[in-house]
Structure formats: C-alpha cells, structure tokens
C-alpha cells in the first residue's frame, strides 16, 4: 500500500497540469449543464462539447498515466526496479478513481444539487453510474493502454474499439440492457484479465490475443443472442408474473381502409393486426416487440425480426385492443406469395403497466420534483404549454404521461428500458424528454399539470398462428395494385 501511494504521488506530480485541465473542463461542464437547466444561452461551448472534451482529456490522461510505466517493450527503466505489480496497478487505478472518476462524480453531484433533485433518492443512481463508468470505460481504457506502446497507438485503438461498440449497440431498447449486461460482463472480464496479466507477467502478446479473442467471442455472443432469450430474462423479472395469465392474442382482424398507414411503405411491407383480449382491469398494455414468420404453400418461408416490425400502434375496437404493426418482409417472398394462401406465425412481447401514480404540479418553467425521480416543467417561453420531464442518470422504466387541464394524457417519448439497474452509462447525468405539445386549439389556460406514472408489472410473450391467409389482403399500398382489402376468414 505504501508503495502504491508513493507511485500515486509521483504520478500526481507528473500529471499535475493534465489533472488541472481535467478539473477545469469538468467545472466548465457543470456550469454549462446548469446554465442549460436554467435556460441560459450556452455561450461559446455547449455542454456536449464539454462532454467530448472531458472524454478526450480523460482518455489522454489515462493513456499517459499507464504509459508512464509502459508495459510492452524492453527499455523502460522501471521494469528492473523493485516495483510490486499489485502496487503499480493499484496506484494507477487509484489515480484514475481520484482524478477522473471523482471529478465526474462531484460534477454530477453538483448538477443534481443545483438542479434541485432529491439527493437521497438520487444517491444510488449516482454511485451506480460511477461504478459503471469506472468498470466499463475507465478500467478498460487502462487495460487498452497497458497493451499499447505509445499514446498514438492507444488513441487509434480506442477509436477502433469505440466504433466496434457503436456497431454492436443493441437496437431493441426495452431489453437492450440484457445484451448490454452481457457486454459489460465481457468488458469487465477482459479488462481484469489483461490488467492482471500485463502487470503481473508483462505478457503483451498473450494479453493482446486474449483481448482480441474475448472481444470476438463477446461480440459473437451479443450478435447471436436471440431476442427471445432477452425477453425471457425480462419476463423472469416481472413484478406480478401471474397478472397477464388471462391475456390472449389472435391474428386479425384484417385492416380496413382507414387502418392503412398514410406514408408510403417500402416493398414487402405487410400489415399485421393482432387482437388482444383479457387485459386486466386497471392495467395498460404496451407492445414491446413482434416477431413474425410467413410460410408459403410450397413450404418456403420468411421471417421478420423485431426491428422490421415497427411501429406497433394500438387501437381500441369492440373486439378488444387491436395492435397493428407494419412488418417489412422479404419483398420477393411477398410478391411471389401475394395471391396465394400463407400461414402466419408470430410471437408478440407485451408489458402490462399498472399501479398508476399521479402528481399534480403547478405549471411553471421552474422544474418541480414529482414521483420516480422525475422533475417536470413547462417551457412557456419557447413552446407554449409543452411539458418537459427530466430524470437523473436514466429515464425511469415507466410509462409517463402529462395531463394538462382537461386534455387527454400526453405521452412522453416511450422508448423505455426495463433495465433493473438504477443508472445508465452517460456523462450527462440528466435525461430530458418532452411530451407532445398542446397542438390544437387555444392554450388550456390551466394552472397545473398532472404527471401520471405507471410501472411495469408483468412482461408476457404470446404466440399466435393463422392459416389460410391471403397475403395480398395485408400488403400495404406500395405493393398493392388496385386490390382493395377484403375481410378474410381467420383460422
């Protein structure tokens, strides 16, 4: 421990100017973020630009820190000195925690305080966000630097890895956290392995190859992981799993003219209607994803993955709740089987929301704390009666509505993550969303707004199957050639 502190002090002296720069940019970030919160013009720098600067300075600082006692190579003076590997590694990680993690933690803390978020309830999120930052970004950066000979190669490989991470980013937001969780485990495991191997043995080639193998295996696992697995994990975390026992789904009814989307659809687009019945009283059902496969009479088939079945819209009809999705199937398959009879199979992933909580707050452009860590306000200066809510470290995994006067509840952007973790990885600690404005008619001229929050109670998967479907009846206008949709028997 004494040796670790001794090395730490040396590094502090060596990098004192870089530390000052890091602290200065972090302070600027806080100021810009708070000014943004209070609607002050940003000046020469936006807070995201300060974020980028923070990232660059932190990366350079970590790179230079590790390379001060570089591990690859055979000319470094320190490798024949009595350094204990655990002390050296401990000193480097302590430095990163103190001069990168801590300033960011303090910056976030200041932002939370100045923005008026309740500190006690925000504390777990704050701590978790820092744990994530250290384990998923800072320590892996140190591991990468431990494999590099110089700063230039470190920065080059950091950019390459950032690009790979961007490409592997999960796209199905609701359950992306399962894939992300796997990625986090892989990143932590690789980083820990590389750091221990490099500092203990300086086996650079072995470390590099094992890191590459780990990234390749982790990436392949992420790509190969079926969405059904992610949803299965999600459903195991249901708060009230039995709540959805009575929910049933069936394919149909076939779309009426008014059901067709107005926008021109790509070739192969098929309208998939699903009727849902048995929704428990007092709950709200929300479709998360839809997977569809269509089998032609000749045995050929095509599968449509969840990314290609969006958006799923909801329509209350006498038969129950009807969900309609526009699925982009293989255009050739649709063209070839348009007039034939097909079998359609699908799985739909649903979430039941309930335990509704309402908080009524005065309409004001000063943010006011509501429930679930949310702060809400209106922007009466720039957009009349628009309602904004913001949340520290992540948007809550809840449905959030704003009800203004006697209007229907306006939904906030509802791409929500059901992640059970309290924070997401983000340098900007505040996520702000906007509820659709009061677009028509005069301003409601009401003194307050009600924020409604519903929590997810059960995650369900329901499978459906329909035989003898004439696909042309569900093909969307881009492919239709004057054939009006007709009601077809559903089996």
């Amino acid at each position, binding site marked *: 421990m004494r*040796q670790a502190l*001794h090395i730490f002090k040396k590094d502090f002296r*060596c990098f004192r100017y870089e530390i000052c720069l890091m602290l200065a940019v972090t302070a600027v970030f806080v100021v810009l973020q708070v000014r943004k919160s209070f609607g002050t013009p940003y000046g020469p720098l936006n807070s995201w630009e300060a974020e980028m600067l923070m990232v660059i300075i932190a990366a350079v600082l970590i790179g230079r820190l590790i390379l001060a006692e570089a591990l690859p190579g055979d*000319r470094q*003076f320190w490798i*024949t*000195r009595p350094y*204990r590997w655990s002390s050296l590694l401990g000193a480097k990680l302590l430095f990163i925690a103190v001069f990168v993690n801590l300033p960011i933690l303090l910056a976030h803390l200041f932002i939370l305080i100045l923005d008026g978020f309740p500190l006690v309830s925000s504390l777990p999120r704050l701590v978790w966000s820092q744990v994530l930052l250290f384990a998923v970004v800072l320590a892996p950066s140190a591991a990468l630097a431990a494999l590099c000979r110089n700063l230039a190669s470190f920065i080059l490989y950091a950019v390459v890895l950032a690009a790979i991470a961007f490409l592997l980013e999960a796209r199905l937001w609701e359950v992306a956290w399962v894939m992300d969780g796997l990625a986090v485990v892989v990143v932590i495991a690789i980083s820990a392995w590389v750091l221990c191997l490099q500092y203990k043995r300086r086996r650079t080639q072995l470390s590099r190859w094992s890191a590459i193998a780990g990234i390749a295996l982790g990436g392949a696992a992420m790509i190969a992981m079926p969405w059904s697995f992610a949803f299965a994990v999600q459903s195991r975390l249901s708060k009230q799993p039995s709540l959805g026992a009575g929910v049933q789904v069936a394919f149909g009814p076939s779309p009426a003219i008014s059901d067709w989307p107005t926008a021109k659809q790509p070739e192969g687009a098929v309208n998939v209607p699903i009727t849902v019945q048995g929704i428990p009283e007092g709950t709200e059902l929300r479709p998360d994803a839809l997977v569809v496969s269509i089998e032609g009479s000749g045995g050929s088939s095509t599968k449509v993955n969840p990314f290609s079945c969006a958006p799923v819209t909801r329509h209350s009809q006498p038969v129950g709740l009807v969900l309609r999705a526009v699925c982009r199937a293989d255009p050739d398959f649709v063209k070839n089987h348009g007039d034939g009879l097909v079998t359609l199979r699908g799985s739909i992933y649903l979430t039941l929301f309930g335990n509704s909580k309402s908080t009524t707050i005065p309409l004001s452009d000063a943010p006011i704390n509501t429930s679930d860590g949310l702060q809400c306000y209106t922007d009466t200066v720039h957009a009349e009666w628009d309602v904004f809510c913001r949340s520290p470290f992540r948007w809550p995994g809840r449905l959030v509505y704003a009800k203004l006067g006697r209007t229907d509840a306006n939904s906030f952007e509802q791409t929500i993550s059901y992640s059970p973790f309290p924070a997401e990885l983000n340098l900007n600690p505040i996520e702000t969303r906007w509820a659709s404005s009061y677009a028509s008619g005069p301003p409601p001229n009401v003194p307050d707004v009600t924020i409604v929050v519903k929590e997810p109670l059960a995650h369900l998967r329901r499978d459906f199957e329909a035989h003898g479907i004439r696909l042309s009846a569900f093909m969307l206008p881009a492919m239709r050639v004057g054939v009006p949709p007709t009601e077809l028997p559903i089996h």
Partner: protein
Amino acid sequence: MTDMLRAIDLVKRFRHVRVLDGLNLTVPEGSVFGLAGPNGAGKTTTVKILMNILRPTSGHAVVMGIDSEALGPDAFAKIGYVSENQEMPEWMTVEYLLGYLKPFYPSWDDARAEQLVRQFDLPLDRQLRHLSRGMRMKAALASSLAYRPRLLIMDEPFSGLDPLVREDLIDGLLESAGETTILISSHDLGEIESFASHIGYLDRGRLQFSEEMTSLTARFREVEVVLDSPPLVPLDRPWPAHWLRPETAPALVRFVETHFDPERTPDEIRRLFGDVRNISAHPMPLRAIFVTLAREQPKAA
C-alpha cells in the same frame, strides 16, 4: 567463490533469427565480468534475459540463485541495471529521481547517494531530459549504486561517451567493485581491460571463451621468430591450432600464440623451424586479442 549469475544452454530466437545459440555463462560472485563481443553477438539479449526483460526460447538463467524468469521486487532491490538505451523518466529532476527511488530500496544509503552525486557532479535540479548523454548515464548509475546492490549489470554503458565521463563512470564502478558483482557488456575493450577481473567473449550467440583476465592476457602473446635459414617445414603446412594469424617473410615468422608458455612455446618453435636467431613474445592488449579471435574464430575456440 559462488556463482552470482549462470546461463545454461540459453537459446533466444526472434522470429527466424537465432540470436543466442546455446549460451553457457558463469559469473563468479565478487568479479567484474566483461562480456565482450562484436555488434550483433547477442550481448544485449543475454543481459535482458538475465534481467527478466526477455524470456529465453529455451534454456534458463539463474541470477543470485533465482531463476531469471522468477526475478521479482525482492531480487531487484539488490540488483542494479544500467543500459545505454534505457528509457528514463525524463520529466524527473536528478534529485526527484533519487528521492523517488529511495523508498523502493531498503538498503538505500543516503551518504552513498550524496557521494555519488558529488563524484559525478550531477546537477540535482535539472530534469533528465535536459542532461547530456553522459550525465544521464551518470544519473542512472548513481541511482543504481546508491543502494549498494549485490549485482550490477550494465549494457554498453560507455557507448558514445567522452573519455572524461568514462573515467568518472569507471571510478564510480571501481569503488563498488568490492561489494558488488559487476557484469558489463561492451564492445569497448579498452575500458573493460582497465578494470575487469573476468572476461567472456560472445560471438554469434555462443560464448567462445570465458576466463580470468590475468589468465587471458598471460596466455596470449604476439610471437616474432627471426630465422637463421629457411624453415625446416614449408610454411603452408598446417600450423598448430593455437597459433593464429601467421605471417611470414623470408627470414621472419610472426603469429599469435594463444597458449603461451615461456618454456614450452620456444621448444615448439624450434621443433618446427629448427635453429632460430631470436624469439620474442610481446604481451597483447585486449583489443588485439579480440581482433585476432574475431578473425580466426574456429581456431580460438
């Protein structure tokens, strides 16, 4: 005398190049061992394997009784290492470097450090990046001698230094020679000759010989034979294997005797050449010995 360093059948390959080819080397405790050899002979590779900077392809080395691959902080606290191409922490001042290293070494001797600073005339407040090459070597040596290491390994320490700096470095080394075993790899034979007690000659990854300096200089002689008449044997016949670089003139024969014996060598000459007018045997400087060996390597072994 026990062995401070031992290399056993060391082989090191870099891709397809076999830099060390079964090297066997022993450095006795308390010796000042000069590891000589031409450029590319494998001296630096040997030193780096001994210091656990490189791993051998096969074979192993033992340093202070520890396998070189197992050398750790406890062993390094007793070993000094100075190399011509070592990357030093350039931002540190000399004073900060010494102060920084002090806690790493339980045997650090402040008085010795101060003495070395004075002896080498080191500017304490100057950053290493602003020191001349000679001064940097002095700083590196001072930081390696201040804890009175049991073993000091130096890789080409005199390369590119002016004579005054060399003298200073050698003086510093000589003061430690009693308590510290020193291994110096160098192709600067003149410097090694002045203070090495043992010498090893490395060429093409193999140790061609290794022995005490006194024994080496005693057995090598440049012999000049003045003949009375033409020799009894034709000069193009095979010479004794321990006679190197023969040169002949009508009544003169000159060669290097690698196993000189004041009694046996003249007898051997007379047996081959008959009566000779004069035999003179001149001691050879180390440089001349190595030039001879380098040119006639197979015979020397």
